[in-house]
């Protein structure tokens, strides 16, 4: 039994250790974190399983009926139970559009955070570990990028992308958008990782690894990297909210996701035109979902920062 169970129970053991550990304990102590986690979880589940959970398919043109256009939410007079949050000008169900839209927002947000994390951590490790001219070049680039607001840099990269590929098809448009958001986000990771790397490389275990002839690349990857990941995790959580808002802003400005696959920002942009004819639900509900996602992720990030900080325990 002993031989086979070690591999089989490894994930179970990890789970048990996690449930017994500090992070889970502090999670149970914090009502804010729990509420935020529940809200975030609901949003993520709704987004991921949109094709199965959504009551209607907003992308299915055949099922749309103009008779049902601009219906208010169910609790207002004239509202119908079939369309819980009302419909837009094409007769699309708002609730279903929200689920599909959140799916795209989360997808773009997560993808750009992952990409900027990889770029930032890589360059930060390089700058901190190699030092010298490489370090100063990378840090100068960071300084210049930080002196401009992120949204401006993202807009610019997006604009250049549009100019380079004038008639981009959908996949390429997504790539340009994700690149634009992640190329503005990596700076923060690079700075944090560089700072921690400078501290770590002075420590004895790195010196020891060097002495026994471990290659610099392996030291960076196997020894330094795991020890600088804590702050990166916190930053990544908060950056998810930032990336989702940046994506929504770009889509709202009409330079984000392609119009064929609307995200939350696109829905808000479309809905703004109907504000004056009294159809507030077309724009307010996507806005509400956006704020809920951003706020809950931010609160989780705040909690994680405190939970991982040994000085606050």
């Amino acid at each position: 039994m002993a031989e086979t169970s070690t591999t089989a129970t490894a994930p179970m053991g990890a789970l048990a250790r996690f449930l017994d550990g500090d992070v889970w304990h502090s999670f149970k102590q914090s009502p804010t974190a729990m509420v935020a986690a529940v809200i975030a979880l609901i949003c993520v589940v709704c987004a991921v399983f949109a094709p199965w959970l959504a009551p209607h398919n907003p992308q299915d043109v055949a099922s749309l009926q103009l008779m049902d256009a601009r219906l208010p939410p169910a609790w207002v007079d004239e509202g119908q139970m079939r369309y819980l949050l009302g419909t837009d000008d094409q007769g699309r169900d708002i609730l279903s559009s929200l689920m599909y839209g959140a799916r795209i927002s989360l997808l773009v947000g997560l993808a750009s955070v992952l990409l900027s994390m990889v770029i930032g951590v890589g360059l930060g490790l390089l700058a901190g570990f190699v030092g010298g001219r490489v370090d100063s070049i990378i840090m100068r680039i960071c300084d210049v990028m930080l002196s401009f607001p992120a949204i401006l840099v993202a807009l610019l990269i997006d604009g250049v992308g549009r100019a380079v590929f004038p008639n981009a098809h959908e996949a390429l448009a997504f790539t340009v958008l994700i690149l634009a958001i992640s190329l503005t986000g990596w700076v923060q990771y690079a700075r944090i990782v560089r700072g921690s790397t400078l501290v770590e490389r002075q420590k004895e275990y790195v010196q020891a690894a060097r002495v026994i002839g471990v290659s610099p690349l392996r030291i960076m990857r196997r020894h330094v990297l795991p020890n600088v990941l804590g702050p990166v995790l916190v930053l990544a959580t908060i950056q998810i909210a930032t990336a989702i808002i940046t994506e929504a802003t770009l889509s709202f400005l009409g330079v984000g996701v392609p119009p064929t696959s609307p995200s939350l920002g696109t829905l808000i942009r479309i809905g703004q035109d109907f504000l004056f004819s009294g159809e507030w639900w077309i724009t307010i509900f996507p806005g509400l979902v956006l704020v809920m996602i951003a706020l809950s992720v931010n609160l989780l990030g705040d909690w994680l920062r405190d939970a991982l900080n040994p000085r606050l325990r």
Partner: protein
Amino acid sequence: MLAFVIRRLMQALIVMLTVALIAFMLFQYVGDPVTNLMGQDATAEQRAQLRAELGLDQPFIVQFAHFIGNAVQGEFGISLRQGRKVSALIAERFPATLELAAVAAFIGLALGVPLGVYAALRRGRFMSQVVMTGSLLGVSLPNFLIGILLILVFSVLLKWLPSFGRGDVVQIGAMSFGLLTWDGIRHLLLPAFTLALFPMALVLRLVRSEMLEVLRTDYIKFARARGLPDRSVYFGHALKNTLVPVITIAGLQLGGIIAFAIITETVFQWPGMGLLFIQAVQFADIPVMAAYLCLIALVFVVINLVVDLLYFAVDPRLRIERSGGH
């Protein structure tokens, strides 16, 4: 001090040259300007001739120098979409953005600082809790959503204020000002508040935390012990010493205001440079993008420079350290 100023000026110059280089490469290598001007079906000789006329056959450095020479004179070529000179387009839009940004900055500071002082002095009271919660919303809500909410409340439901355009403007020379007419002011209110909310919340929170720090120090206790009136303790002694970080943040936020004006101008269809830039991005109008990029970079560099110099005016300790130490 002079050495410091010169060093900062050199840094600013390097940043400007880098940005100009990026703008130049955009201009020259993204999309073929010859094809853009002549269309697809020009002959090879015609192309070569235009190429020579535009100076495109010259070495890179010469072209770049030429580009900078033109840029310094405000010459960025012709908008691909509108067929007009970029300099004219920008000159036309500039007053609108300037007006919006200046009013927003004014609102941000004029409300942010006093509210911050209030929240610090009346800590824990109900009203200051309200102020702090409001500022949290101001920091965390996306800018365009705030604009839409303000439109919903003040234009659609209450019908108090108009929600798009500049309204009546007064033409003075080449510049047009909306602040001089009542209609213009009414049009300005919503966008300016939308734009002001984020910097206001930031300044408010900063002033509050700085004030709380300063109020604990000995010299404040001493000022009180000397029997100075509250007003002079709070505003003469305490507030003055919170100003250094406030100036930094306020200065940097001024740049942020100009960048975020892009979003606010889109929400309120405000005919400023931001709207011009967004349309340029949508249609890949490179000359307009390049010009806007250079102009914005210039604004940011100037703001950073002014903020650095303001330190000297506000904090006497810096004057002694820097001039004495080096």
